[in-house]
């Protein structure tokens, strides 16, 4: 026993300093610094950070801040908070969770804007302008120097919408516990909803399918599929890439469309054509929560 204790102590005595030394060596290693000269590549357009700087100063700094840290003068009034480009954690990506987005992902975000946030669509700008802005955004974080964007996920062709697909999606909605945040009827009022916070420790609301049509990262079924698989980094919405199969993700997409009862879709039409679906949708429509804001319902 004593001998064992001796060897353990000796081993610790040898390993610990080595481990600490290695840690110190890691700390001493020069950290990557952001590169002030970045490019972006969107289709056949190349963006340049130098050109993007002026555009950023004209359009973006009020919210995202002069240093890109999401702490612009208006940040204190904005909910959700503006993106912090220094942290370089992005919600809308075509890449697997934890990876940097592609230039196209950032470009699409600028083009599309974000629903239910202060970020508008910048489609009035030119393609070159948006590409330049993407390049400039990448100058704020060393992640763009030390890491490469992930590979975009492959989205398989969407299968035909069927009643079976919708019903299976409904089962998955329960099985994967989506309802815990999004609520049983998709109204964003699940039992966990009030406890959720984002990466800034700010309270965050789950998506409300009942009132919403567009999603944060797009409006199509294709976009919704990507959200499941990539997750929404910086929020509690995880990636389901390792949890569900592609065909199951499509089933979930088809079911979620039926929760958007104020927005016609093939999925909703099919669901309403069944006695069960018709009863559910009817009942939900009666549960009106009109706010007077002009937003459905």
């Amino acid at each position: 026993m004593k001998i064992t204790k001796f060897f353990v102590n000796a081993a610790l005595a040898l390993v610990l300093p080595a481990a600490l030394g290695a840690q110190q060596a890691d700390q001493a290693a020069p950290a990557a610094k952001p590169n002030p000269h970045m490019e972006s590549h969107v289709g056949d357009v190349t963006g340049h950070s130098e050109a993007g700087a002026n555009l950023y100063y004209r359009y973006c700094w009020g919210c995202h801040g002069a240093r890109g840290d999401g702490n612009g003068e208006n940040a204190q009034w904005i909910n959700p908070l503006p993106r912090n480009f220094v942290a370089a954690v992005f919600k809308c990506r075509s890449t697997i969770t934890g990876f940097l987005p592609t230039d196209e992902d950032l470009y699409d975000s600028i083009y599309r804007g974000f629903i239910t946030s202060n970020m508008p669509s910048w489609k009035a700008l030119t393609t070159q302008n948006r590409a330049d802005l993407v390049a400039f955004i990448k100058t704020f974080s060393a992640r763009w120097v030390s890491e490469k964007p992930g590979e975009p996920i492959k989205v398989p062709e969407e299968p035909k919408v069927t009643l079976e697909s919708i019903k299976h999606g409904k089962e998955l909605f329960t099985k994967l516990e989506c309802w815990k945040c999004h609520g049983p009827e998709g109204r964003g009022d699940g039992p966990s909803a009030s406890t959720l916070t984002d990466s800034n420790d700010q309270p965050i609301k789950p998506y409300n399918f009942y009132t919403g049509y567009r999603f944060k990262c797009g409006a199509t079924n294709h976009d919704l599929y990507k959200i499941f698989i990539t997750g929404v980094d910086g929020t509690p919405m995880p990636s389901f890439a390792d949890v569900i199969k592609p065909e199951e993700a499509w089933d979930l997409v088809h079911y979620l469309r039926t929760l958007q009862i104020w927005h016609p879709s093939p999925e909703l039409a099919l669901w309403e054509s069944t006695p069960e679906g018709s009863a559910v949708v009817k009942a939900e429509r009666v549960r009106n929560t009109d706010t007077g804001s002009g937003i459905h319902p």
Partner: protein
Amino acid sequence: MQRFLSQRLACHAARLGTTLLFSLVLLAVCLVDCRPAQGIPAFARKYGLPCSACHESWPMLTWFGQQFKDNGYQLGNDRDAPIFQNPAYWPATFRITPFWSRESNNKTQVDGPAGFAANEAQVTTNGFNWTGLDFHTAGTLAKNFSFYVLPSSDEFGSFHFESVWARVDNIAGSPWLNIKLGKFELDNLLSEKRILTLNSVGSQYWNYHFQPMSAPGVPENLYADGIGDNQVGLEWMGHSADDRTRVSAALLTASDGNPDVPFASAYEGFFTASQGFQVGSLGVQRIGGFAYLGQAPTYYQYNLTTVSTVGTDSVNGNSVTSTSVAPIPGTGTGLKGFQRYGLIGVWYIKNFDITTMYFRGHDSAWLGTNTPALPGTLLPAGAHAPTWNGGLFESHYVFSPQFILINRYELVRMSQQAFSTNPGNLGNLDTLTFGFRYNPFMNSRAGMAYFGEYGIIWQKGTSPVTASNMTTNSLVFGIDFDF
């Protein structure tokens, strides 16, 4: 040491003097009772965007700002309705402009040996002044319902309404269906309400306000400020989702934009269309055109004519009388037509942009010769329908969102005079304006710009007494701010 100190002091004093002089120059400003529509910090406060997001420089719109305006002051991210704002939010903005100006005209009508107001002389004035107050309130009443109310005062505090309108946006979910009712800025690709210069010469687009001369020293009576000023009526406007294609048509009351009774029971039409397109890395270019068609009265019914003595001529001792007549409002009749057309291009080469305009105007010979179109009346001998062509070149260089250089040249050339006896160049004008605007800070709470401008206009045969060439110029420096 003493010498060194005295050198330092002298240097310091010189630097102080230069600084003071520069400060005084900056603090000086322009006159101008004509103020353009403003950038509205109330919008910036609502959305947290800096002024520069919507304004190339205040109040000229960027394409993003144009899209925001076309979409009914909405960004489209479901935060547009007032319900999403803090209850303390008030969509209001005040704007006023103190300035110093020097104004000069080489042919001002003055008294003199030839009699009462029968001479011309150069008159130059300078001094400090301020504009009236603009009180902008604008925004959304609910999603897809927008409004704009702009009480505006003169420098004495007497208010009128520059804009009063409500708009239903995106009817049936279509950006092609937007209806506006009230008094509003005409939807023109080159809007005078977005003009960057404030000096008394360059605060308007002369092509929009040009009136031909009926005869030397006698201007045409037609009220022709329609395109430059806000008008009262109903407008349909439509645009593509990305705002690259824009069209509008407005039915306007034939009036000067003031409430109550119009000139006559007549209407005017204003039609525009424009298309934007992207040219590589140069930017979004846009071409468009407009047509302004209407009828104007050639005479009114009068309810009063008085001749009163207003003084005695100091030279010959004769009484000086004044005649006043009061047309009955809205009784304008003998309606005759006028047309204004324009082709506009807005060209961007990165930070440099130039706007070009070809303008064509045509008035009925009745209007051009100031002839009441009474039943049975004939036009005077040698009468023609005055016709003219105009052009505009306005360029800007945007060093940064805070600093812009401005240059504008306009010209008008008569192609047909109202009378064949008129000199061919009667009324022709050339005007040049250049200046700068510098915003010392940019935020979403308030706006402020130092500005300096010089404008000059040369016009042929328009002096009030001798009908000779007239030159007017204006130099202004000031601080334009809103909050």
